[in-house]
Each structure stands twice: as C-alpha cells, then as structure tokens.
C-alpha cells in the first residue's frame, strides 16, 4: 500500500509521515570563531549546552537518550582522555594542544548524525551517505556505552576502575605474556574502544 503523504508545515518545523524536520537551528550551532573569543571555561560550558540540546534528536527511546546524557556527563566531568589515548599505544604523534578544537569537531560530528538533507542539496550521493555513517557510529557508541554502564552497575569495584579510571583493558597484548582473564572477556569492548581512539585520531575529534 502506498504511504500517505501527509505533510504539516508549521513555523518551526515540517512534519511528514516519517520525520519531524526542525527548521531553526541557531541554538544548536556555536558562534563563529568562538574558541578565540571566549575563555576556556565558557567554551566548554557552551559546547556542553549545545550537546545537551541535541538530546531529543538522538533517539525516540528514553533509555538511549539517558545513555547519551550519562555519556556526555562522563566525558565532560571525569574522563582523562590523555590517559586513555596513552593506554592504547596507538597514536605516535603529540596530542594537539587545542583540545577545544576536538570538542568543536565532535559537536560537528553529532550535528551531522542528526541532520536530514533536503534532496535538492545533495549533488553527490556520498554526502547523504556520510550522515548515515555518522548516525550509525553514534548509535553504536551509545550501545557500547550502555553495555559498559551495565557492567559497572553489576560490579563497580572491578569495572568502574577499568572503564573510567585506569583503562588497563586497552593496553596492547604482548606475545607470550599471560593476560588477565577479565581483559580477555572484555575483548569486544577493547577492540571497539581502540578503534574509536583510532577514529578520533584520524578525524581530530574526541568521541
């Protein structure tokens, strides 16, 4: 059966049978050249606020939205990304001093994940495809984050230390060494996180 093409157009949005497309996006964007204009503390707060505003776009399920909020909170408050990056041993270059730029790039990544292209704007098929990749990666990151939260909830004494503080599970295995069985059990999470660090390195983001 053909789908009904019902479209309601309001001042703020276009609602069709599948999506609600929001028209005003000023409050989700950062001001131009704002890294140099504002002090560091303000820049972090501003970007945090914008990440939070994107929450309704992440998913229609409350559980996923809560995971997103928790993840953001952890990223901004607790995470020691330098240590995490060191633990993987993947990146050889120096970390760029401007971590604010990485935050801006990450916001750009999330924005890409929640945008819908007007058909006339897409000349190349790749542009549309890339938004799709962003959305899938974000979804996978949140699923993995949910798995981690579940494990932390189960046994905080072991998993909180591992996932949030020491990041020992990310260390490369050396040939012939005996590896802690817990790390082996978490091999999938380890692979995912190492891959995510690699992606961050190539895109200059901090997901």
């Amino acid at each position, binding site marked *: 059966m053909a789908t009904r093409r019902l479209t*309601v157009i309001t001042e703020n*949005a276009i609602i069709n049978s599948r999506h*609600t497309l929001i028209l005003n996006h000023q409050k989700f964007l950062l001001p131009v050249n704002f890294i140099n204009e504002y002090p560091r503390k303000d820049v972090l707060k501003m970007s945090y606020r914008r990440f939070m505003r994107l929450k309704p776009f992440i998913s229609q399920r409350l559980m996923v939205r809560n995971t997103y909020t928790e993840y953001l909170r952890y990223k901004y408050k607790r995470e020691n990304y330098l240590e995490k990056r060191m633990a993987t041993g993947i*990146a050889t270059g120096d970390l760029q001093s401007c971590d604010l730029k990485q935050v801006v790039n990450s916001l750009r990544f999330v924005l890409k994940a929640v945008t819908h292209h007007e058909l006339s704007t897409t000349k190349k098929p790749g542009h549309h495809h890339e938004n799709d990749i962003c959305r899938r990666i974000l979804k996978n990151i949140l699923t993995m984050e949910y798995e981690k939260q579940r494990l932390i909830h189960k046994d905080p004494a072991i998993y909180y230390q591992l996932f949030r503080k020491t990041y020992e599970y990310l260390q490369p295995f050396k040939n012939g060494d005996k590896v802690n069985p817990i790390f082996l059990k978490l091999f999938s999470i380890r692979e995912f996180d190492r891959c995510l660090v690699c992606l961050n390195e190539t895109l200059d983001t901090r997901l």
Partner: protein
Amino acid sequence: MSLKSKRSELLASASNLYVKLRPKKCSQTSISPIDTTPLVTNFAKWSGKRKLLLLTKNSSLYNETKPMGLDCNLFASLLSSPMRCDKIAKLKTPQDMLIKLKVRQSKTAEVDSPQKQIDSFNLLPVVKSDKIGQSSYVTNNLRALENDAKKANNALPTSVRNSTMRSIESSEIKVDITSIIANNKQGLLNLIKKELKKHQVAEREPLLETTNDVVFLVFDDKLDNDIEIGPSKEGGERKTITLNLKNLGHSELGRIMGADFVEGGRRIFLRFSQHQELIIAVYKLLAVSH
C-alpha cells in the same frame, strides 16, 4: 420653512443611520492559501515522529556539516557496521569485529568401515558474507575464545540450539574453537592473497593526499603495536595509518606478500577506497593473532 428644514435634516440622519446599520458586503479580496496553520504552531513537539534538523542550502548548518571523508576511513567503516551479539561473551559488538559462524554439513568416512560415508555437521567461520542460513557471532580472538572454552556450545545459532523441529541434535554438531580460529585465519589469508593478485598495489607513497584513506602495511619487529597512527611526513591534517604484520609469522606472510616484504622492510601502500575488503581482512587477521 423651519419645519421643512427640520424634516430634511431628519431624513438625512435617518438615511445615515440606515447606511450605518445596513449589513456590510463581504470584501471580495482573494484569500491567500494558509501555509502555516495557526492551530498547530507547536505541532513539532507532540507529533511523535523522529526529530531531525533539516539542512537547506541557505542555512548556516550547511557549513558546519562539511564532508569529513568518512566513506574512505577504515575505522569509520568498522565502527559503523551493524551491532551483533557475541554469543560467548554476551556483549554487543559491530559485526566487522566478530567472526561469523554457520553450521555446515560435510561427508566423512565412518571409523569402522571407511567405504561408508556419514553426514557430519560442523560450526565453521564464514569469511565472505553469506546470507543463507542462520548465523551466529563470536569474538575474533583465539586467547579470548580459549578463555571461555567451556561456553563453546553457546556459539551455535539460537535457532539450531532451541528448535525441536529438526532432524539433527545440537549435540551432534561439532564446535571446535581451535579449528574455527584456524579456518578463519586461513580464509582471511586466502582472501588477502586473492585480493592482492586482483589489484595492482602501488609501492610508492602518493604525494599531496588530503584524506585519511591511505593505509601502509609493514613488517617491522621493532615496533610494539599492530596499529599506529602518526602525523604524515608532509605535515598537514592527514594522518598515516600503519598496520604492522609482525605477529602473523614469517612463513605464511612471505608466501603471500613476497619474501622481500618480510625481510627487506618493504612498505605496501593501499588506498581504502580501492582495497576496502583487503584492508578489513588484514585488520581482522591482526585482531585474531593478538
């Protein structure tokens, strides 16, 4: 005279009153079609549809969402593959980071009388994607699988394990972790060999590349890690991704890549947009042999 004037005054006021009280004619101006319904200005809040930002050419969002080169990024491709449940570790992971398994039927000779052939069922890895039949997924690492060897039977696809409507028992299916890993490794090596033959692999590094789709394969005993990402020689934003194959063993690699790759420290340069399957196979092979 005064009476007459009074009368005319009265008449005039009466006609004025009549004009005032007379119902007005509807104005015939055309009504523009309503494109925004005033009753549903906040309909977006309760429409119940998935919310997205609409990107138009004029919006400032257009500049923010410039292409990032994700379609030719190895890690983006790995991370964006659909999530599947790892049957043994019970964790969800992207499909490309797991081994896909299927139950296969084969004929083997019976122990007592070699002429007689009987059906046997094995759980085997699938290297190239194959959609026929039920499949399950397990961790792509020998040590991790050996650690959970007791749970090996969990690796059977759910439909095979639970269904009572089939002619074979789940206990008849052989699940052997070492052979799964060995088969997977061999399959990946064959795939790499085939792909290398198919494509002309350039030896020299291209200049003035802006995207991150360049991957180097090296064999270097001095490097600690399998994967390294560092700044490129020319500087700029591009990063060099290096996959080190030292853990894979001299003999097999020498046969596939050529002896000079293993001994002479040769670098092979690949482009993700062209050799996607090959690079992912190499990445998987590295993960297996950690």
